[in-house]
């Protein structure tokens, strides 16, 4: 407990500095409202239900897009590693589209699916799929040949080999790719909602900012930032549990 306190004390110092600086008007308190005011605004948003009402669609979009991206991305990456013909055809496309700034797709998904949930889910799916694909591909490609031979020697069918040998050895890199995708999902969720949406946390931020209720805007901004941080921490804990077998093997 006290170790954590010492470790995170710089954050505490920053928070106190923030409070003092805006309390005593060293900077305009519109530009930087005191933390206490932001906390009060946060409670207001929570009791009025605005926060929950907007968080649910945001998280639904992010979750749905991410799940689709993981499913398709993993399948695609392993297929590329397994069949070289798939790799020859799709490899250049993956390589070509991977560096493309995903935010450029926002207007296109709007043209295709309108302003609702569909366009955000499509955007998050498209944006998050390639990191997962590349993770799965690199992981599956680096499967030790010896393991594959042994499995085949012991009479494993191709499907079983995929499930029992290739997938587990691809797992560390795959999970790494999914972590990148998780961070991207949050970025794309917020950006698409800030630019075009009728509801959602990003939209709430834009709305409050446009109305000049800056304390409430800061409250939502910090909430989203915290959600992204928490999601990553939870994901890392899960990853360590899933990969527990690997640590013992390596030690």
């Amino acid at each position, binding site marked *: 407990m006290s170790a954590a306190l010492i470790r995170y004390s710089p954050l505490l110092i920053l928070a106190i500095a923030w409070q003092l600086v805006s309390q005593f008007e060293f900077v305009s308190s519109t530009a930087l409202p005191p933390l206490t005011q932001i906390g009060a605004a946060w409670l207001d948003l929570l009791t009025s239900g605005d926060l929950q009402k907007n968080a649910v669609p945001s998280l639904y979009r992010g979750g749905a897009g991410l799940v689709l991206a993981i499913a398709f991305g993993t399948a695609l990456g392993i297929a590329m590693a397994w069949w070289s013909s798939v790799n020859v055809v799709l490899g*250049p496309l993956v390589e*070509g589209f991977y*560096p493309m700034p995903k935010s450029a797709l926002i207007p*296109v998904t709007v043209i295709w699916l309108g302003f609702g949930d569909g366009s955000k889910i499509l955007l998050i799916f498209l944006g998050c799929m390639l990191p997962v694909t590349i993770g799965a591909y690199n992981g599956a490609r680096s499967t030790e040949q010896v393991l594959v031979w042994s499995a085949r020697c012991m009479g494993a069918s191709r499907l079983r080999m995929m499930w029992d040998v290739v997938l587990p050895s691809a797992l560390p890199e795959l999970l790494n790719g999914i972590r990148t995708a998780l961070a991207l999902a*949050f970025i794309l969720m917020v*950006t698409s909602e800030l630019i075009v949406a009728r509801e959602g946390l*990003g939209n709430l931020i834009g709305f409050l900012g446009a109305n000049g209720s800056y304390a409430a805007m800061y409250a939502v901004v910090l909430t989203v*930032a915290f959600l992204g*941080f928490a999601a990553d921490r939870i994901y890392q804990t899960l990853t360590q549990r899933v990969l527990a077998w690997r640590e013992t093997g390596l030690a």
Partner: protein
Amino acid sequence: MSRAANADERNPAGRVVRGAIWAAAHLGSIVGLLVAWEVFARSGAVTMFMLPPFSAVAARIWADGVDGNLWLNVGLTLYRTFVGFLLASVIGVGIGIAMARTRWARWFFDPIISVGFPMPKVVFLPVVILWLGVFDVSKITMVALEAVFPVVTATVLGIQGVGHELVWSARNMGAKDRELLWQVLLPAAFPQIMTGIQVALPIALIVAVFAEMAMGGFGLGGAMMQASRFADSRGVFAGIVEIAVIGYCVVKGLAVLRHHLLLWHQEAVSPSTV
């Protein structure tokens, strides 16, 4: 792979042929995609609004190129991306060195980095607009804010990963702090720092395009948003193609630069990925 490499050494002509086949396969799937786009758009299954044919989009890009708008927008987007990216690289490497070398910097920055890295920093956009307005400064700030984190973590890990033998040998031969940093630690950590910088570049582009979309004005993102508001779907798709090409060129360019900067390093021998 190694067998192919051996064959190449014996027969340089074989390498040329193999390279040509590889390039053809690469181009083939891109060309295939463009042809499929053109055919699908003309088949009548979708309206011209939802998917204009590639030829129309290419004509639009050509027209923009002739009247100069294209170069203005591309130039502005690249300018914002690169200024933000360079700031992020310099500041990131600086903070990383400080964190790896001094105790107080580590104590101060470690929680900030570990909390800040996984956060979607783009949500601070309205705050940055509130402070700095909607012009270049705030766009560049957004880019740098999001791109700095991977550079810091890569630098810290890279410097900490430098072998003790190297440091001890240098010390033993009388290297001072500054010499140790410039002549031993930074070169030895450079591959990892470069990887962090390579992660930061696409992020910088994503944020630059997004910031332009959200704040308006010139630049590829702003042009796309404007086209989208006027239901000008050719303009939107032209923007997508331009941004995709630029993203590819910039990221490839950095990979080539890495190869040249790291020619002395072992990794340059093996083929680089992405």
